[in-house]
């Protein structure tokens, strides 16, 4: 008993060490005074906020944060609204081509961004929307949409039909029913989907790098690159900026993990 418990404890410790090491190393490099060398970051002797001050105040990261936040919020608002309507359509109505629409929603998620970036760059360029936050946001709405539809579809389908019918019997029209009955019931799913759209927009790299080539229009993922010199890299600053980027995502992620896992497994395991 004790030997197997010991083995299990060692395995858990190993998994946790491997999992948490990069996050630990990132935080320590960012906060420690000796964060410019590996050993200094691993075993810090004194802590400082200087790297964060430099990143936010002198390196202009506040601008990138603002840009990323604006883009992410537009993406969330746009994709949530559009996805909710579409999810209601595929979850609540039986119509011709419904399966086709669902399969298309699944398939477009597989398309690599490397294939989309070239035509989207030309399209956005033709519309004179390179280096605009709105141009990037609109493209992100499209990126976040298929997954949002797929996820919300599950939440809408989980609302019992009887609840809707009761609303109709009480004389409600469809829009009234949607607004007063369905919407409150799928609100938790909507929050989870919104968070995912936020993370998609916040983390995206290849399109942001291609569309935004003016420094004041960078998003956080692109803004990080400026700390890389030709020969040297200011690692404590990179890690401080990375910490700032990572923290909101981590908080959101822990918040939605349950819904995510059950949503993904739904298609695979049939209870």
């Amino acid at each position: 008993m004790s030997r197997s418990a010991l083995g299990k404890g060692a395995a858990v410790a190993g998994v946790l060490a491997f999992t948490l090491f990069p996050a630990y190393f990132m935080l320590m490099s960012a906060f420690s005074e000796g964060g410019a060398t590996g050993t200094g970051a691993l075993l810090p002797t004194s802590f400082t906020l200087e790297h964060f001050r430099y990143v936010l105040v002198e390196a202009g990261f506040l601008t990138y944060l603002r840009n990323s936040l604006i883009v992410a919020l537009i993406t969330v608002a746009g994709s949530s609204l559009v996805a909710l309507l579409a999810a209601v359509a595929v979850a609540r109505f039986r119509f011709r081509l419904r399966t086709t629409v669902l399969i298309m929603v699944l398939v477009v998620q597989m398309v690599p961004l490397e294939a989309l970036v070239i035509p989207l760059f030309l399209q956005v360029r033709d519309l004179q929307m390179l280096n605009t936050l709105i141009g990037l946001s609109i493209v992100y709405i499209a990126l976040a949409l298929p997954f949002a539809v797929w996820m919300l579809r599950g939440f809408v389908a989980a609302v019992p039909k009887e609840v809707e019918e009761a609303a109709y019997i009480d004389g409600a029209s469809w829009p009234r029913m949607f607004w007063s009955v369905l919407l409150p019931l799928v609100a938790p799913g909507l929050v989870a989907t919104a968070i995912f759209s936020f993370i998609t927009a916040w983390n995206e790299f290849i399109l942001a790098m291609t569309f935004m080539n003016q420094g004041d229009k960078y998003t956080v993922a692109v803004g990080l690159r400026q700390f890389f010199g030709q020969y040297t890299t200011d690692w404590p600053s990179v890690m401080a900026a990375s910490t700032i980027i990572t923290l909101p995502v981590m908080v959101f992620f822990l918040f939605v993990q349950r819904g995510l896992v059950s949503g993904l497994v739904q298609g695979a395991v049939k209870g």
Partner: protein
Amino acid sequence: MSGTVLTRPATTVAGRPPSRRRRSSARARRRALPWVLLAPALLVIGVLLLYPLIRVFLLSLQDYGLRNVVSGQSNYIGLGNYAEIFTDAYLWQVALPNTAVFAVATVGGTVVFGTLVALLLRTLGPVARTVVVSCIMVAWAMPAVTGTYVWIWIFDVDRGIVREALTAAGVLGPDGFNWFTERLTFYAIATLNVVHHGFPFVAVTVLAGLLTVPRELYEAAALDGANAWQRFWHVTVPTLRPVFAVVTILSTIWDFKVFAQVYLMPGGAGSNVDVLNLGVWSYVRSFGRQEYGMGSAIAVVLTLMLLAITVVYLRSLFRDEELS
């Protein structure tokens, strides 16, 4: 269908007085309603995902350079770009192996390690399990860009922790060793990065599947004298086949189109030609050398490969389940 088809639901007044026409128009409206609801999504997907897909294919048939971008004129050359790609030794010796071997290594690593962690998690009590799951979520939640930078920093050639540890241990001389210039070590680091980021999804998904396997199956197998390995191989694996199929294929799709994890590494943006994969190669040809037609053709090849994997995925997903 009547004119009500065009009426958006949001503008329909609630509680409108009943009329004789109401029944038939209500039915028509109900039939049109799903399409009205779908319209914005289909428009966005069509304009920003499907149309670009067609466009990238058309671009792949052209010699499309900076001059064409400015003038907007097309310049069709048939399948010339594809002929060039498929006769280019670079595809067969560098880009394709870097993509496919890397995908096999990362998918294998992710699925095996994720499954082992799931099996470990199942043996834990509920409190310990929740704590460990929350911790491995940290690895999943780390954005690809920042995660990649952290791994580069860990392996930094001059002052990284691995370099300093190896030097202190006497393994590495004062000159150090640049593991980013060698293809094998470059991709070993990229594999570590991708497995670290991808295994939590497998672990949590397989765990969810494991918890649905009835205990009686294991008890019956144990009564028949099966050892732990036999129980895993003959009970767990067959029961969870659909779960393994989904995590394997999803991981394959994700790992085939890895971009930032390679592009951001030293040399990964084109200066070290030995380490490019299909995605980065396409990007470098398009935006680095302004050969948009050539870049598009490479991107189409990558997309077709992913599409083939996707078809397999959909088959395994829908084999025993109707979309409902």
